[in-house]
């Protein structure tokens, strides 16, 4: 951060004003951290599976004609009675669990990424406005942020989901369920971006190049976009990385308690909920494997987020 900003009160210009990721610092630190390399490899595998499940999943789990009830409740391949055709076992309808996890991953990743993008955009715009203009607009936005911050994200998400059910009615809610979830997760998320962006914008606002741009009568939207945004963006990337993990966990949690995505588009959380029903009767793999898939995904994202924070802005 310190390299990117030019102090307004002195003539000294930093030796290297480029953002840290241009300086090879990120790459060098990355190559020195085997744990982060491992996390990136794991995440890339997850992303590939999530982007193209049709290519990677061994079975088409949503094609009912491929299901065979005689394959129901097969245990994982290495347990007695398991088969290599279904490496992680099958569910009550003979569905391949590994394929179900891969398709579920797609839903989880989609909801996580889209909701983070949504709260990122809302938070960035509100934070820029609050920080740049100050005054009553700033006071209003930050007061709303304070109130919002006192409610934990998971509660807000459950509540938004409940409200959407009441407003939309069950039929319409079923159709829009994924978007309701995205909104429910994005809504409490904007505050952190807004607070971070606002603080940085208030600093950058006073710098000479912004003053110069204002003297040249450049339009305010242009100043915000071209002069301020690039200089306050770094910490937002770090925050967004970690927030994707948070969003994925919230989605899984909502789906687990039965309030999330509809059963027709099962995410990892839905799979764990369904599997949990069979836990007491001994079919442990149905809940454990989707859960482990979720755990390693979140862990990989957290490791990468920690790494980015350590390298790019340790003060966050």
């Amino acid at each position, binding site marked *: 951060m310190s390299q990117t900003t030019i102090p307004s009160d002195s003539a000294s210009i930093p030796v290297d004003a480029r953002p840290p990721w241009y300086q090879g610092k990120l790459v060098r630190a990355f190559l020195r951290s085997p744990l982060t390399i491992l996390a990136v490899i794991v995440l890339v595998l997850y992303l590939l599976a999530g982007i193209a499940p049709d290519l990677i999943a061994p079975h088409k789990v949503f094609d009912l004609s491929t299901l065979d009830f005689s394959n129901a409740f097969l245990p994982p391949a290495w347990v007695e009675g398991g088969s290599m055709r279904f490496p992680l076992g099958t569910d009550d309808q003979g569905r391949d669990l590994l394929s179900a996890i891969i398709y579920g991953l797609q839903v989880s990743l989609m909801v996580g990424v889209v909701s983070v993008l949504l709260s990122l955009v809302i938070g960035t715009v509100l934070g820029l406005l609050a920080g740049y203009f100050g005054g009553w607009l700033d006071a209003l936005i930050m007061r709303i942020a304070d109130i919002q911050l006192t409610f934990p994200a998971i*509660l807000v998400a459950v509540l938004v989901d409940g409200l959407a059910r009441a407003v939309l009615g069950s039929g319409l809610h079923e159709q829009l369920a994924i978007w309701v979830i995205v909104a429910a997760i994005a809504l409490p998320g904007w505050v952190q971006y807004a607070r971070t962006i606002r603080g940085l914008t208030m600093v950058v606002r006073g710098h000479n190049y912004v003053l110069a741009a204002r003297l040249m009568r450049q339009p305010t939207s242009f100043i915000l976009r071209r002069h301020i945004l690039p200089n306050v963006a770094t910490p937002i990337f770090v925050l967004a990385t970690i927030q994707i993990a948070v969003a994925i966990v919230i989605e899984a949690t909502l789906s687990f308690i039965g309030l999330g995505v509809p059963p027709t588009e099962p995410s990892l959380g839905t799979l764990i909920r369904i599997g949990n029903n069979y836990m007491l009767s001994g079919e442990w793999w149905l809940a454990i494997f989707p859960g482990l898939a979720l755990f390693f995904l979140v862990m990989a994202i957290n490791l990468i987020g920690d790494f980015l924070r350590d390298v790019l802005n340790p003060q966050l």
Partner: protein
Amino acid sequence: MLKFFIDRVFQGIIVLLAVSFLAFLMFRFLGDPILAIAGADSTAEQRAAIRESLGLDAPLLLQYLDYLRNIVTGQFGISYRLGEPVTRVILDRAPATIELAVASMILTLVIGVGAGIYTALHPRSAVSKGILAVSLAGISMPSFFLGVLMIYFFSVQLHWLPSFGRGSLVAIGGWETGFLTGSGLLAMIMPSITLAVFQIAMVMRLVRAEMIEVLQAEFIRFARARGLNARRINLRHALGNTLVPVITVVGLQLGSTIGFAVVTETVFQWPGLGLLFTQSVEAVDVPVLAAFLMFIALVFVVINLVIDLLYYLIDPRLRVDAKKA
């Protein structure tokens, strides 16, 4: 001090008013209370009569004031789903959640602060590295999945702990507690760990980071130079100075404890407020949801107020600032 306190109370009241207006809008416009009372086969005249008797033909602002008056006297209407007054439903369920939250808070403070101090004092030991690795796993582990895993190992495989419910309870006054019976305590183990694990990991990391920073401060070196014993330096001088951020986080966590209780109670079928909340969302039980919203807002306002006051008591620097201001 007094001005600071009054400011905070005033802010809290504004938050509560804003939330109560939201709750009122929900209560008034989601679902149809008249239809709920009169039944689907009532005539238009009957409905009009009920509308008038309930005051629902009055201007919105008057209705809101009416709603506020009801809230202050503890009347939140009748639950659509259970047919009982919402206030009674909530009061019946509250002890279960409060006991769960207290148990997990104790775990958080004892394990989280303890492990944080240890890893800060012995940064290079193998035990510390192990603790840090476990804490990273704890932050990445979705709490409901930890619950599922524990049920599998301790209930399904080993038959040591019950997988649902509160065990047998003892009534003290109107309060049914599980703290005093063996089965009540056993039933509490897995839910409270599930609820606490994320917070333990967070508090631990926080205490460790703060403590490492404080240990490098001048006054610690001076205390060492004076020859004070290590225990006194570590616990009194260093720990005392790390407490302020820890209190904020733990306090704010108390709020998210209630949030996460929604999840934990669903996993373990724990008959508390969280389970009530999920069931009410599924059944679109608007009066309960509206009351819940108010209840949570009240809890958070009180928690924030207490945190601010604790700051004031713990950190003498704030008192000086407040006098200057």
